[in-house]
């Protein structure tokens, strides 16, 4: 039995199909990256997983139990939403207090410690927080929730480089000490590619790809060198895309590398997850 079982999930908003027959089986205590372009259905999926939206068809099961109107199951999931859902007039401290009422394992001391690390003033009202600090605040509530399943919808929205760095480190520290199931939905693929273990790419409401990062990256490579050398080399190969800069070219190839047949002067580096994503989600046809 999968830990999180997403079965045949479809969500329609009027004539628009936001999700179409999504089937995903997530394992316990892994970090998943949920990637997709704007409007791909990422937030809809997370909202259905937390009973904020009711699916048109299908269901989400946590250890066999449906999340729909099920408080016992829902208290095991914390979803950090992209939108501001907290009462604007409450202070940060008050939200920490009330979070503990909803999530019994919410750790107030840890929330205070994280607030200090991130420089979040806990006496401020939610309405007074800047975009960046609003994200910081939501990240802290999510991490301190101690929920078994943490869903993070665009957690790094508006965060500066220092705060992003701190967020990734605190997330990994938290996960490493108390393993839990984490789903991070993001656009900034490059930043999370070494943090996530498995990647789910959705496009136009459908699952395009679901695999471990390691598997995915081992399926291809990047070759760079002079234009002519690269062009000769890539002829007849499965080329994802090519970038040119003057007389230089880089080609992204989905194939096994055979070092013996690699001509002199060409350099090999790893397949870039971001490039793969852009290519896969740019194609008109969903594979």
């Amino acid at each position, binding site marked *: 039995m999968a830990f999180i079982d997403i079965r045949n999930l479809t969500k329609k908003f009027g004539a628009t199909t936001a999700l179409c027959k999504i089937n995903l089986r997530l394992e316990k205590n892994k970090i998943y990256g949920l990637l997709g372009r704007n409007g791909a259905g990422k937030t809809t999926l997370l909202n259905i997983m937390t009973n904020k939206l009711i699916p048109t068809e299908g269901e989400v099961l946590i250890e066999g139990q449906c999340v729909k109107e099920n408080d016992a199951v829902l208290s095991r999931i914390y979803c950090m939403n992209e939108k501001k859902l907290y009462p604007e007039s409450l202070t940060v401290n008050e939200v920490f207090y009330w979070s503990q009422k909803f999530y019994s394992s919410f750790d107030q001391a840890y929330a205070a410690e994280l607030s200090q690390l991130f420089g979040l003033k806990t006496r401020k009202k939610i309405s007074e927080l800047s975009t960046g600090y609003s994200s910081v605040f939501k990240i802290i509530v999510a991490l301190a929730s101690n929920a078994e399943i943490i869903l993070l919808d665009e957690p790094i929205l508006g965060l500066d480089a220092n705060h992003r*760095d701190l967020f990734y*480190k605190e997330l990994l520290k938290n996960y490493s000490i108390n393993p839990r199931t984490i789903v991070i939905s993001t656009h900034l693929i490059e930043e999370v590619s070494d943090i996530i273990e498995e990647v789910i790419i959705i496009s136009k409401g459908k699952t395009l790809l679901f695999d471990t990062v390691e598997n995915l990256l081992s399926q291809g490579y990047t070759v760079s060198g002079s234009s002519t050398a690269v062009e000769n080399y890539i002829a007849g190969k499965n080329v994802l895309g090519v970038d040119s800069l003057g007389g230089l070219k880089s080609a992204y190839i989905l194939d096994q590398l055979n070092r013996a047949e690699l001509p002199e002067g060409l350099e090999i*580096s790893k397949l870039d997850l971001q490039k793969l994503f852009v290519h896969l989600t740019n194609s008109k046809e969903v594979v």
Partner: protein
Amino acid sequence: MLIDFNSDKAIYIQLAEGLEDAILAGAFPEETKIPSTTEISVSYKINPATALKGVNLLVNDQIVYKKRGVGMFVSEGAVEKIMEKRKISFVETYIKNLLKEAAKLGIPKSEIIAMIERS
């Protein structure tokens, strides 16, 4: 210890090699503790499973061993083991490439030996 995130070499392998280099350089003497997978994961911002996979390569080669509840320690004789292992790969990675390049440039073996003696 540096990890090249753009390299086509897997991160866990780079990590294992980096730890070996550190052991060779004496940064982690035999019978001392190496960083935990949590510390490695946090400082390099990599998934703990990747960090564990790298450390496990060293466990399999008996270069480090686990003390239950305490952490990972450098085995006795680890330096020697790493040197033995590296000597074998030295031929594969350095000598064969050297000979290949020399052949391309038309350098005879006697001249290579002279070059080595001179440098």
